[in-house]
């Protein structure tokens, strides 16, 4: 029994992609360090007694997440796929009842409250849908007698519909990009690439005119004088204040002024306190994560695993690009967390879930990888 377990562990350790594992753990540790920096300011603002409240919570969720991630990473592709499908069904079911049992924050109903823990089902939906869609595409490609693409599309439309009810424009865009990415990689013909891109563009335009907050954010980005750009201005100020070497740990000021310093603007906090080195380190780690996942995906011999890895890596990459892009005032403000780094229990667990799937699919198994990539 014990021998089996230790043998299993040894197998897992040999098989797991240690590069990816180390990068993800590094990002989680950076997140904890930054939580330590931002927590006192946030607790002070929110009137919470314990200054390290957010650090403790983040640590607890990180621990939980890492355990979950390691557990999932030990699954074989089939088990991982089943888990993803189950998670997708669960997330969809929760999102359907969300209008009844969810609670509203800032005009959107996205959360289910369990004690002091807020669960955001749409966070779990993303990796689950990506893996499920990858499976369905791969099955149809392989010639399985099921209309995989139609089912995948149906699931995607349903998900977008449920996200729009909340409403959550940002997640919809992210999900669309990930789904589109997987679809594209699965061999979508160029005509359909054009058709679907224009449909997505039309959808964005519709959202721009349907949701006033989307329109106002875009307008503010294009013309900063037209509205309040308080958060972005503060973030810019913080990053330029940080300079190359940073203001020093605890010396940052932006966390005292930014309402979402510990979540959406954690990058600005990092850049102010630890300087350009920290910014480049975070950007570099994400780039490395994506690069590693990408090279592994290229080498994978199995279409499903390849698509799943692509989709999951794409989700982390896009989320990081959007979050950091907003912090650097490159794109209009969009509330999106920095994967593994931002504070947030639900987000952390969902990301760990996704990372676990990623590790599961990239694990070395007999025949999983081409020994030498030819052609």
């Amino acid at each position, binding site marked *: 029994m014990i021998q089996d377990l230790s043998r299993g562990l040894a197998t897992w350790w040999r098989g797991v992609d240690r590069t990816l594992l180390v990068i993800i753990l590094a990002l989680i540790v950076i997140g904890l360090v930054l939580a330590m920096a931002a927590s006192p300011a946030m607790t002070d*603002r929110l*009137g919470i007694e314990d200054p390290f409240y957010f650090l403790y919570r983040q640590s607890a969720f990180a621990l939980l997440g890492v355990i979950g991630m390691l557990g999932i990473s030990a699954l*074989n*592709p*089939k088990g991982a796929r089943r888990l993803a499908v189950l998670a997708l069904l669960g997330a969809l079911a929760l999102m359907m009842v969300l209008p009844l049992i969810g609670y509203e924050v800032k005009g959107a109903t996205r959360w289910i409250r369990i004690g002091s823990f807020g669960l955001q089902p749409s966070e779990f939906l993303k990796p689950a849908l990506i893996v499920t869609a990858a499976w369905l595409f791969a099955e*149809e*490609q*392989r*010639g399985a007698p099921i209309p995989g693409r139609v089912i995948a599309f149906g699931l995607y439309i349903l998900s977008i519909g449920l996200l729009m009810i909340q409403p959550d424009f940002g997640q919809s865009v992210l999900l669309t990009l990930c789904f589109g*990415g997987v679809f*594209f*990689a*699965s*061999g*979508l*013909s160029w*005509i*359909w690439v054009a058709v679907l891109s224009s449909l997505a563009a039309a959808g964005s335009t519709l959202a721009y005119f349907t949701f006033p907050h989307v329109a106002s954010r875009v307008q503010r980005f294009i013309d*900063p004088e037209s509205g*309040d750009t*308080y958060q972005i*201005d503060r973030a*810019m*100020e913080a*990053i*330029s*204040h*940080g*300079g*190359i070497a940073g203001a020093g740990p605890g010396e940052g000021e932006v966390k005292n002024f930014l*309402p979402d310093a510990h979540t959406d603007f954690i990058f600005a906090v990092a*850049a102010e306190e630890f*300087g*350009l080195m920290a*910014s*480049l380190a975070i*950007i*570099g780690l*994400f*780039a490395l994560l*994506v*690069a590693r996942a*990408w090279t592994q*995906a*290229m080498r994978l*011999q199995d*279409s499903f695993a*390849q*698509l799943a890895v*692509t989709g999951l890596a*794409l989700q982390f*990459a896009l989320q990081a*690009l959007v979050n*950091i892009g907003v912090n*650097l*005032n*490159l794109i209009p403000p969009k509330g999106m967390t920095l994967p593994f780094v931002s504070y947030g229990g639900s987000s952390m667990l969902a990301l760990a879930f996704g990372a676990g799937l990623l590790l599961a699919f990239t694990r070395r198994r007999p*025949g999983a990888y081409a020994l030498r*990539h030819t*052609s």
Partner: protein
Amino acid sequence: MRLWPFRKQVSAKSRSVALPPLAEAAPADMSRLLRIESDETKALDAARSRLRVMGLSLAVGFALLGARAIDIAVLGSADAAPSQRQAQQAIVRGDLFDRTGQVLATTLETHSLYADPSLVWDARETAEALAGVLPDIDVDSLTEDLGGRGRFVWVRRNLTPRQRQAVFSLGLPGLGFRMEPRRVYPRGRLASHIVGYTDRDLQGLAGAERAFDGSLLAGDGRPVALSIDMTVQFHVAEVLAASVAEFQAEAATGIVMDVRTGEIVSMVSLPDFDPNRPSDATPGGRLNRAAQSVYEMGSTFKAFTVAMALENGTATLESGYDATGPLQIGGYQINDYHAENRRLSLTEVFTHSSNIGSSLIALDAGAEAQRGFLGDLRLLERAPIELAESADPLLPRNWGPTETATISYGHGIAVSPIATIAAFAAIANDGVYVRPTLLPVAADETIVGERVMSSESAQTVLDLMRENVLDGSGGYADAPGFQVAGKTGTAEKPTRGGYDSSRLISSFSAVFPYDDPQYAILVLLDEPHGTESTYGYATGGWTAAPAVGEIVSRIAPILGVQRAEDETGERAALVRAALMPEMIP
């Protein structure tokens, strides 16, 4: 399915591949392992090339982020810090100084407190806490503001550093400070009408702030020095305030002007206001009575009338005028205030301030001559001073004999005190009119003046004015040793259909020292009331003249005017001898 435009050939072919029975039953992984076929490899290769495209795009994205992070951190992006941007855009406005270098107006960076209601947790609590630090805050209205849905409300502009620190110490969420430049006037009320004030955006609205707006904003804010001497200003203001209190006057103004250069050394208008808080001014407080108001100046104009007559040759010192009874003209009757009911010499007309005599002098010269002469003295236009407030005079609609007569003693024409004193100064400046100015004149600067009368005429009027102080209505204006020469002016305020004899404009216009006139001074009281010590009189000689005397004795030493040591009596005899070569029979 034919419509489905995906890699048909792949799925079709792979479907047609006959799989070994064992593979069919084997687990999915197993079956894939077995089917390492060229088609599958082709599909994977196609996917790989697509992955390459996507990977490249992501790489570009991350490279962009890195570049931007370096850009902001190292170079400090153009749109980086709004507070810095604001500071760069901040209006730079020069300081205002008086002629001795005292700061009259300067710009300070102050902190303005604002709130972001969406970040304020408890509007009421926040408002109450703020009221504890800034006591004049209205808690109810602030609570309403803070409870609003906006993202920005001003709580209080321009806090002092101490107030800012106090607010900071409250540690309330949702509050922030913005740096704002603010105009500060260290001398407060004392120079209020001279310096004027600006709006929030530091645009000059009144006084020197408006008059010299262009210079103050030029370049990096050029400082402007004024001709005002704040020490003189202090004494004029103090004496004037005492007179206003003593005679319960409604308002008052006092002006001191250098007769040779036209520099305004002092200009006081009461009631005044604090230019640091112009919106708190009392009604009329912001009115600069020295330039913005026009008054019928009364007998002061007799000096101009006599000067005009002498200049035109229609009168000499030997001329006599019949003041035995009231003068009937155009349905009006002109009376003397202190009727002598006899023939008066030109000198007596002036010293006894005879309206009848003055009218006769003016009528001898004619309306045209009078108009031309007053025009030369710039009394028929707004005073040519830099102040935008300088008011146009009120002139008669038609200038007939009646008007000529009344204008000769300063009724039926209303001019600003600054215009009056400038014209008066011309008499003291050897008959040369110099534009009044608020800018200091350098010692070697050439003053371009206009000769408006001959030296002799000017000297004669000056003699008459000195005589008027020594032995006339202006006696109280004499400041021992400083030889004041001047003319009283008392005008009844016009009311509907006539004049109100109980509401007076009492003034005294003077120059000093008589020997070598350097300064002109005017004091005007609006509706003074007689007191016991003036036997109920509220005329210029009783109210404004003593103020002039007091001011001269205070400011002459400051201005460096030499005190003449001659006996007053001796000088009086000399003047009298000069004025009256032979007695009029």
